[in-house]
């Protein structure tokens, strides 16, 4: 009989064996089967309009106007409340999205193919910092930027990537870790490394120099451009582990601003949820924790594959940025995550820890036994729709998700 430990080793093997490659950017309607008209994919586990937080409602109002499904924001809110739109988690469509995580038909999505297993995962393009839709922004400037991304940037990136034959992400991440990125709140190295590969391809395929300058300038000005690539990669890596029977390894962690949810290999696609917690961090000038929205976004998929808070030791600069203490304490976060994971990733190593691999494969048994919960590095959104990012911090996954998952897992194993 297969033991839980051996099932977990199989889940870990699948997580580590993935070969993620950024292959394309296409409209979501073309990439995601079943993404219907007036359907809005969002971050986190399932949620209804009446339980959504401010930024998520703000983003939904904005994207409905962007798609032409509502005349203005008020009209969008009325229609949303009346049930005119279908809401589903990104995770149910092989997709992920940062913060509010809007994915709709005409948005361009980045396509990451896991060539070891043949599956694909999707994520919209990062909009940059400041007032953006992922933080609930929905004014004219936000919607104009999305239109430019749909009409110019997305098609340009698609042409460039198709010409490249695909950009392998595993070695790129490995290099980024040695350059101080943890791929959640610090992506400056990987964004730069990716742009270095994209720039000549964009130059060869762009529709004129004006578009080329705009695309290069947009990517070059955004330190977090790579975050969405890393997220699609995380989803592409974790999906093959979703059906490992008898495994207690976590295959998804995600938040919708109201609930935190996890999925576990041995219990399939069931969500285990608990109220989200408030990030603890540092606020931009003029803002404080009174302005903050609770934890939100699919971006914890990067922690699920051993990056972000799990790779904190690779990114001492992030510790200060997210207000988590001194740079010298960075390794303590990674050591703590090693206590709740089943292995380490030999392909992604941390120089400051003598090239130890990032801790990978969260085991719900270890979380419940130790009480040590996953550390997630995160941006902080304003609680009101339309304002945007107000800070960055660290948040803990709620223990209750793991306790509930453990009970269900025990039932599935016939021991509860």
């Amino acid at each position, binding site marked *: 009989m297969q033991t839980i430990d051996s099932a977990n080793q199989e889940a870990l093997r699948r997580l580590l064996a993935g070969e993620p490659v950024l292959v394309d950017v296409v409209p979501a309607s073309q990439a995601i089967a079943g993404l219907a008209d007036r359907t809005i994919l969002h971050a986190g586990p399932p949620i209804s309009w009446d339980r959504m937080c401010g930024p998520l409602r703000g983003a939904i109002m904005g994207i409905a106007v962007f798609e032409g499904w509502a005349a203005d924001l008020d009209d969008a809110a009325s229609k949303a409340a009346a049930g005119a739109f279908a809401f589903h988690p990104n995770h149910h469509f092989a997709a992920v999205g940062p913060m509010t995580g809007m994915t709709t038909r005409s948005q361009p999505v980045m396509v990451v193919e896991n060539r070891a297993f043949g599956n694909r995962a999707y994520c919209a393009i990062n909009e940059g910092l400041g007032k953006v839709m992922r933080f609930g922004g929905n004014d004219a400037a936000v919607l104009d930027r999305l239109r430019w991304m749909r009409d110019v940037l997305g098609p340009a990136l698609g042409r460039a990537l198709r010409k490249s034959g695909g950009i392998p992400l595993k070695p790129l991440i490995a290099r980024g870790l040695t350059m101080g990125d943890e791929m959640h709140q610090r992506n400056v190295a990987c964004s730069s490394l990716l742009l270095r590969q994209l720039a000549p391809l964009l130059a060869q395929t762009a529709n004129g120099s004006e578009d080329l300058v705009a695309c290069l300038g947009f990517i070059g000005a955004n330190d977090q451009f790579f975050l969405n690539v890393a997220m699609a990669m995380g989803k592409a890596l974790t999906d093959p582990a979703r059906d490992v029977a008898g495994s207690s390894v976590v295959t998804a962690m995600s938040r919708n601003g109201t609930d935190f949810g996890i999925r576990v290999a041995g219990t399939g696609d069931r969500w285990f949820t608990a109220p989200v917690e408030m990030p603890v961090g540092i606020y931009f000038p003029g803002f404080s924790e009174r302005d903050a929205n609770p934890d939100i976004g699919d971006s914890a998929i990067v922690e699920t594959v051993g990056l972000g808070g799990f790779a904190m030791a690779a990114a001492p600069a992030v510790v200060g940025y997210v207000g988590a203490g001194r740079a010298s304490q960075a390794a303590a976060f990674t050591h703590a995550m090693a206590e709740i994971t089943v292995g380490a990733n030999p392909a992604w190593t941390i120089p400051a820890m003598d090239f130890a691999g990032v801790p990978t494969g969260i085991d719900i*048994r270890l979380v419940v*036994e130790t009480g040590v919960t996953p550390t997630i590095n995160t941006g902080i959104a304003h609680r009101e729709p339309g304002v945007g990012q107000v800070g960055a911090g660290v948040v803990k996954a709620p223990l209750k998700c793991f306790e509930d998952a453990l009970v269900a897992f025990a039932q599935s194993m016939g021991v509860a």
Partner: protein
Amino acid sequence: MDPTDHDRPNDLLAAPPRIVNVGLELFAVDLAALGAKVMHVQWSPPAGGNAQLAGLLNKLRT
């Protein structure tokens, strides 16, 4: 134990205490504030002392 050990001065009692504190960190913090050399070990009962979850963990240990 070597029987002659009984005849030697006991270093443990003669030297300043070196302390390993397990569990509640407050004790370690107080001792450190008094100048004692103390190492804290983070520990808590399995599943935070929840008997039902600890029982399930025992059954899921393989």
